[in-house]
């Protein structure tokens, strides 16, 4: 495929299409970081497919110089499943949003994740419907006043990470559009994962829901509102890294490092067999708790495509390559002379 020519650069991953997101949209940064990470990894463009549904985020494939499929609302995980099953050698990415993935397409997302088929699913969460001009989304906070909810929305929001963990995700990560370093890291880890990798990306819709994630992006305060997860390390955060997270029964709580023995702090274990810790982390919400960034869970499990190929190989081994004439003559036959 790609020969030992010049190494891949982010520019090689830019398609010839003009990017049409609103100026200032968080999607620009996600696109740039994705191109950077995939160039660094040295992907084979010909073997890479980006699949999306409908929504602002779903225009993503048009801007990647790989194979791409901009499909219909909510169904990208199913289209991508078809792609991966037809050719398991391909690297298949799904780009979706909070509406596409968790509203109209929640069913498809659920089943892709529980199958553990090797798709890298990036869910851009801006907590609003942007392309339809500003209605509340399934991740909008309750009480949100929007074009369709002048008195405030009454729907409680869904937590994307809890959803993914609840249906058995083997890889769950979270990052922020403008937090370039941690976004790159999570994307790199997702790219390397075998099985479904689910990544929630906090993304600013500067037109309809600007600063929805300001708590996590404001230079002056963000350190106090998010905690970067590191496997095997205690959960420590804050501007001066003086705060930590401790478990009190089943409830995490913020403690001052000064008065807390180091052993008391919660140690992150992304590879724990049980998803309980990851679920507990996913439930940590601003303002009472720092919100976790990085890799919440990363465990190995047999992939759907592997089991599918295995059954195909077993059938071939047991029955040989199919013989049409034998197939036609199965069961009782008789001759008319």
């Amino acid at each position: 495929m790609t020969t030992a020519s010049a190494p891949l650069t982010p520019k090689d991953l830019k398609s010839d299409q003009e990017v049409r997101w609103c100026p200032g949209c968080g999607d620009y940064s996600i696109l740039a970081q994705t191109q950077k990470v995939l160039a660094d990894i040295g992907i084979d463009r010909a073997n890479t497919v980006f699949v999306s549904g409908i929504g602002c985020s779903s225009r993503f494939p048009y801007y990647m110089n790989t194979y791409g499929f901009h499909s219909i609302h909510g169904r990208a995980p199913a289209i991508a499943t078809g792609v991966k099953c037809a050719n398991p050698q391909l690297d298949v990415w799904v780009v979706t949003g909070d509406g596409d993935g968790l509203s109209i397409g929640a069913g498809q997302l659920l089943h892709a994740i529980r199958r553990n088929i090797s798709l890298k699913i990036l869910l851009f969460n801006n907590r609003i419907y942007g392309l339809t001009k500003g209605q509340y989304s399934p991740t909008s906070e309750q009480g949100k006043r929007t074009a369709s909810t002048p008195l405030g929305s009454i729907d409680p929001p869904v937590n994307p990470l809890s959803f993914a963990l609840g249906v058995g995700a083997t890889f769950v990560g979270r990052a922020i559009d403008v937090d370039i370093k941690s976004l790159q890291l999570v994307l790199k880890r997702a790219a390397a994962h075998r099985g479904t990798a689910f990544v929630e990306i906090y993304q600013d819709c500067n037109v309809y829901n600007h600063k929805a994630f300001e708590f996590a992006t404001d230079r002056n305060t963000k350190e106090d509102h998010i905690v970067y997860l590191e496997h095997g390390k205690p959960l420590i955060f804050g501007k001066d890294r003086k705060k930590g997270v401790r478990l009190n029964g089943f409830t995490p709580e913020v403690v001052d490092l000064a008065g807390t023995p180091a052993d008391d702090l919660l140690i992150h274990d992304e590879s724990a067999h049980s998803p309980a810790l990851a679920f507990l982390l996913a439930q940590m919400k601003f303002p009472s708790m720092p919100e976790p960034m990085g890799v919440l869970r990363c465990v190995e499990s047999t992939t759907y495509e592997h089991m599918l190929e295995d059954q195909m190989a077993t059938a071939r081994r047991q029955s040989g390559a199919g013989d049409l004439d034998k197939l036609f003559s199965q069961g009782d036959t008789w001759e008319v002379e």
Partner: protein
Amino acid sequence: MTTIATNPIEKRTENRSSATIRFAGDSGDGMQLAGSQFTNTSALFGNDVSTLPEFPAEIRAPAGTLAGVSGFQINFSSEDIFTPGDRVDALIAMNPAALKTNLRDLVEGGILIVNSDEFNIANLAKAKYPTNPLETDELSRYQVYAVPIATHTVEAVKDLGLSAKEAERCKNIYSLGLVYWLYDRPLEATINWIKSKFAKNDQIAQANIRALQAGFHFGETAEIFPVRFRIERAKLPTGKYRNITGNQATAMGLITASRLCGKPIVYASYPITPASDILHQLSHYKHFDVKTIQAEDEIAAVCMAIGASFTGAIGVTASAGPGIALKQEAVGLGVMTELPLIIIDVQRAGPSTGMPTKPEQTDLWQAMLGRNGECPVAVVAAASPSDCFQTAIDAVRIAVQYMTPVFVLSDGFTGNSAEPWRIPKAADFAPFPVIHPADPTVFQPYARDERGVRPWAIPGTPGLEHRIGGIEKADITGNISYDPENHQHMVNLRAAKIDNIAREIPPQDVYGDASGDVLLVSWGGTFGAVRTACDTARKRGQRVSHMHMRWLNPFPSNVGDVLKRFKHVVICELNMGQLQLLIRGRFLINAHGLHKVQGRPFMVSEVLAKVDEVSRG
């Protein structure tokens, strides 16, 4: 073969050219099994056969109720036949409910065998019989044989150590044995089947064989049956035969097509009556490079198929009416992205959930028109169970050669019923290899060849990286375009591409004379009834011909000419006039319609009555 001479009493054997029988009983009585064994035996004997299995949507409605009745009708003949028969010559009713729901289809003077053991007060009440019909004269127009089938069955197997329940379960096989005697059928095929089916349980195998023989011997020795019937072998074209259902034939057709074009199949579907059997069949054929996925829903199923098609496999999905409705947005995506895609619709009675186990042809409009936008697809329909095989091959060929979704219309009757199939040789089919583009210097995703078809470039091909999607695209490049003239142009191109398929399909043929008084038009599973009606009318001297349409979109190019050559055109469909509207709209003729939506196929007599009606003017 038994001979009259060995019988203890004098019994006549009468020759008949054909007979239609029906086994009817409770869902748990094994009527489908008895029916399919009778079918196999008759086919192996050399008759032509046509079957109509009828079962309720409920898996096991309460025993003995009218809702729980399951039936299996077989028409077997010494001549070429196309239908399971209008009325039945012999009815086997295993309980009062089966009698009640099936009696109206028994011909006057017909043979009625009832399992008298079940005609007790409780079962009569469940069947809403105020009095026992066996004790009144309400069955006087039939030859009634009240046989204590359960008692006889239990008696026949009593020393085998079976539980009472196990022993009684053999009663379907007993009744099968009795009907074998009545129609002079050999027992060997069923005995062999029992031995292999119950290979691991000799006790049950022996019990069923005993029950079969007991039923046969009862017919031979009891003094109640004065006559038995013989239906000689049919003069079918020479060759090797087997029985095949429509859904089996569809599965095999897909596999064959996959071989012929050299592309693997990815079949994704969601279980639905009456299409699930295709999934069951294909899931056994992984060694033919068929991947089957049971999707989480109908929409996911069609989307998986589209994803697979984009990747260079033949994406196939199947469903019935309600499931097809769910898939339609994605079918539109298939049209827009111009990918090969097969959508099989095994039609059932609608609207909404309708009557899931009953056939109808009410999805023609849905297949033709049921999407947003100007969204033409190719539509082809199977005429009979065995025809599903060639139909599936034709659909795949058109899909890959024209880069288009193709609807395959079957129905619950065609999909589930069986008929003899002359087994073809794989080598007899012409391959239609697919060539994917590989040269980046000339590649454009939406450039077209002289037929208007875009290239099928697949992921994994270096240099051909491109993006497709549901948004309107610029001609040639495939880039997003909202340009008004371009949209008009693209709509025209997509329509022209489908029209061009008419070049690939054979001209419409007409059975009978090329002109005349009445042209009967049919499509799909009504072929058999209409062809039989046409034959009958012609024998009566009526100037009737038959045009059976395989391709419904596009129409073969000469359809308009054919229609003009007849005084009257009658379009026969199991709907309220869907093809009729399309033909009237397209050819501006006053086509008559014969319509029926009762969840049952046409009877030949209904078609003949319509012929008479329009002939009278």
